[in-house]
């Protein structure tokens, strides 16, 4: 199996990239690290003879802290995010997503934008972006727009992006005091794994009343897209931050928030059971961090 031939464009500005995308429309594919695109092309799952690489656009790979938020460029790689001090200090769950994606070689190329645009239900960075309530930054020749990450994924491989649009980055609000977040991926081995299930949780609590002010729980690999466990989130709002509550959240997430399917990586029943276990564990860990 050989990689088919294609024409490669390497624009150096977002403007040029947008113009190219507009010109070629659906015949052209955007490429960041290429760790999905090139594999799919080689396996003849997708076809194209024009590729627009985004890697020469410097600003797309920046990670910037500004005021109350951090802006992560679409082309920031896993390796870069893992090493970034602001990600390490303030977005531990995202760091853990990035640390665990693929292998060293892959992490040096794989980008966060690529991970989201590839929109695999098992993608590693997506639950973390969801629990930090990220905003997706989108541009086209017609202008800019933003959409909440919650509404970005539409199905396996399908996102909110229109043909002529490019994802330029993510805005993540700096998490408040007394909050914590945790991400767990479950696979068969310890590295280079494609998740059987993956869960991220964020939790903010009131140190006086010891109750949960706010939580976000994101589940991967159990639906057509990564999803928020809304029933579980609602249920524990205002409840005491303790093991029982986390267990109930897990049970609710398992029973009411997800509808996994069987595939060769794991059965629906196991996935569902693990949603319970991992939701509880991620909430517990988030709480410990928050204290």
């Amino acid at each position: 199996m050989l990689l088919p031939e294609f024409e490669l464009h390497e624009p150096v500005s977002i403007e040029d990239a947008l113009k190219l995308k507009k010109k070629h429309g659906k015949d052209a594919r955007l490429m960041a690290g290429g760790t999905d695109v090139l594999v799919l092309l080689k396996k003849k799952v997708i076809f194209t003879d024009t590729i627009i690489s985004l890697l020469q656009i410097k600003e797309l790979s920046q990670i910037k802290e500004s005021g109350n938020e951090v802006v992560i460029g679409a082309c920031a790689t896993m390796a870069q995010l893992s090493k970034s001090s602001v990600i390490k200090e303030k977005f531990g769950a995202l760091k853990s997503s990035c640390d665990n994606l693929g292998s060293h070689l892959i992490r040096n190329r794989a980008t966060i934008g690529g991970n989201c645009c590839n929109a695999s239900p098992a993608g590693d960075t997506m639950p973390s972006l969801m629990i930090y309530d990220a905003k997706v930054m989108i541009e086209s020749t017609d202008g800019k727009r933003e959409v909440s990450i919650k509404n970005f994924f539409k199905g396996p491989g399908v996102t909110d992006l229109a043909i002529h649009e490019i994802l330029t980055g993510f805005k993540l609000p700096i998490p408040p005091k007394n909050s914590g977040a945790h991400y767990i991926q479950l696979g068969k081995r310890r590295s280079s794994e494609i998740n059987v299930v993956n869960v991220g949780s964020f939790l903010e609590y009131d140190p006086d009343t010891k109750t949960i002010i706010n939580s976000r729980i994101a589940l991967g690999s159990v639906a057509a897209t990564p999803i928020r466990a809304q029933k579980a989130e609602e249920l524990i709002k205002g409840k005491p931050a303790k093991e029982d509550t986390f267990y109930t959240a897990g049970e609710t997430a398992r029973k009411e928030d997800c509808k996994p399917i069987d595939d060769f990586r794991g059965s629906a029943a196991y996935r569902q059971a693990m949603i319970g276990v991992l939701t509880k564990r991620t909430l517990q860990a988030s709480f410990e961090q928050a204290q």
Partner: protein
Amino acid sequence: MKEFNTIRTRANRLDSPDKATGEAIYVDDISKPGMLFGALLQSPHAHAKVLSIDTTEAKKLPGVKAVLTSKDVGTIPYGVSPARYDETVFVTDKVRYVGDEIAAVAATSLDIALKAVELIRVEYEILPAVFTVEDAIKEDAPQIHEKYKGNLTAEVHQEFGDVEKGLKESDIIKTTTVKNKRQDGAFLEMQGCIAEFDRRGNLTLTSGTQTPHYVQRTVAMVLGMDIGKVRVKKPYLGAGFGIKAAANPMELACCFLAKETNKPVKMNYTREQVFMFCRARHQFTHTITTGAKKDGTLVALKHECTLDGGAYSSFGIATVYYAGSLLAGPYKLPNMSYEGFRVYNNKPACGAQRGHGAVIARAAFEQQLDMIAEELGIDPMELRIKNMMSRGDTTCNDLNMSSFGMSECIDAVREGSDWDRKKGNMPIGKGIGMACGFFVSGAGFPIYRSDTYHGTVMIKLTEDGGTALVYTASAEIGQGSDTAFAMIAAEALGVPLSAIRLASGDTDMGVDLGAYSSRQTLMTGHATKDAAEHVKSQVLAVLAEKLDTPVEDMDIKNGFIEFKNQTLDFSELRTTYIKEHRGWIDNPDSEKLTFNEASRIAYLEKGTIVGTGKYKPVFLGGKYKGAAVGTSPAYGCSAQVAEVTVDMGTGQVIIDNVTDAHDCGKAINMTSVEGQMEGSVSMGMGEAMHEEVIFDDKGNVLNNDLAEYKLVTAMDMPKVKSIVVESDEPNGPFGAKEVGEGAIMPTIPAILNAVYDAAGVRIYELPLTPERVYTAIQEYKERKGAA
């Protein structure tokens, strides 16, 4: 004890510099002037009649030089064992699995060849297909081979002693059924080859194979050529694990394409094709009943096994025999019966893989031993020691343990793992388990029945003196055999390792059955030692004559001649040597006569000094049907302890530590022995924990890449404490025997037993995915809750 100078050291491997610098040449690095590229058309259907093949469009494509089908190359049957030649290079009437070869193309580029393959039109009539043993043995199941009714490749019925009686006399009886999943060899280097004819009609096939000799014979037979006109060469190889131990259809197609085009032709499997071709470990289902006395003495073993074989026999007949015969040890077991069935179906053929045939049987049996030990209240180590064979013992099926350091292995892992302190004292979720195993040190017979030597070696001394050139047709496949043979040659000849140059992997160098069944160190090692001694005796004979001293009074050691009479005057010989090197500034002035001088003098007297060596096993016993599979000149044995952590909530298992002891006889190269031990643990772990080839319901491999077929990564590998136990094998060169396969035997059962210790669950199906372990834990909790 005998003193050694070269063997039993940690000498650097001969291939390290090439491999460390990236200069090692593998098949795919080789390019020839005018070389064409070949590609195969393989069946997209698991079972279908081939109604017609139209190659017209493919042949028209510019750059295409040949398109071949069975019409062009004939239908000479071949396979692994002559008793089951059930393959042809290209299919004739029907395809039997997704991947069956239909046609091959040679073109000026791989792109063109692949394009041409797409242009070949094949009309199929789809036939019903079967993918499991259960479906394949049904009365009305579609038949895969005309000749082998009931989809049976082979069946085995054996009984030694009286099993029924033994079971009746037992105080405790355990029956369990254990199954594994089909493996993939997953070697780094995919199969590849280059075939080339010279103008005189001689064929050279350069191929990534473990067995140049078998490939040579098969190629000659299928192409209808004299064996002498076929040369098979193996460059550096990125492993094989058994899968590359026979000719593959690509090699044969490549030779035909080279013949047709009169150009060198290169072909490679892609990773997907490696999965399609398979020939790796079978899926086994073992049902084993073991009977023991109250005191733990093993009395009888009743064993039934089916093998999910795939579309062709490959090594399957040997596999089905090994699966039974290798349970007769390492414990004393007077009564054993075995019923084995190897079944065809419409999946790729399985064959031989590290620990051929015996790995899952061992896993099932060693798990049962632990169940018996627990019920009798005996420590698992003690139970094993109690029943262990020792040196000189013979199993009920005639396997003789001419050396056997098994109790030493058990002692070593007991101490090395701190077993006595840990066993029974670990918290829930943590566990420790052990198991033993043993394996042949070379198959007693070639895969084709013959009186051939299993290995011949030739050593030539350079005419100028001082260097020995060792020629062996054996196969260095990454395991370090070249280094081992150079070390054996150096030791036997009495020269430093640096005085040896070695070439291998070329059928022009002699006969060697190749790298499989853990045979080379013992067998090729013997032939190497034999050749070195032959050379040495010729050199010493000349010295004896020249110095008028009996041969018995001299020896060669470390590159010097040792005379019993230390004042013996050899100055005349030295003068002769120095005269030969007039003007050279580094002439010898040592107190002792050097090997350089001696070998030059020998040449001056006799011409080129060439020594030959050979080896084949003596008759190894066993008169019953199937005795040829299992009997071996020697058996390596091992014990392992695994420590695990089981996440009781998710079922994830982490292997924390492995302590591994193996008796390899005398270790030729210590580091290589440890390398084989660690490699075995990693492969055994993969099979235990996550490796399995998964198919869809049409016979396509779903996980045909190394992202979805899950090998053990560096992150998963625990610390392995490898302890080399050295017995002295009377049938081995310098006392050496195998380590390459025996070392994998205990890994899976040690893990299974450790998981039981940690989580209280016995698991009878591999791999131990989190899901399988989780489900077992849930069922266990429910049972306990109900009770």
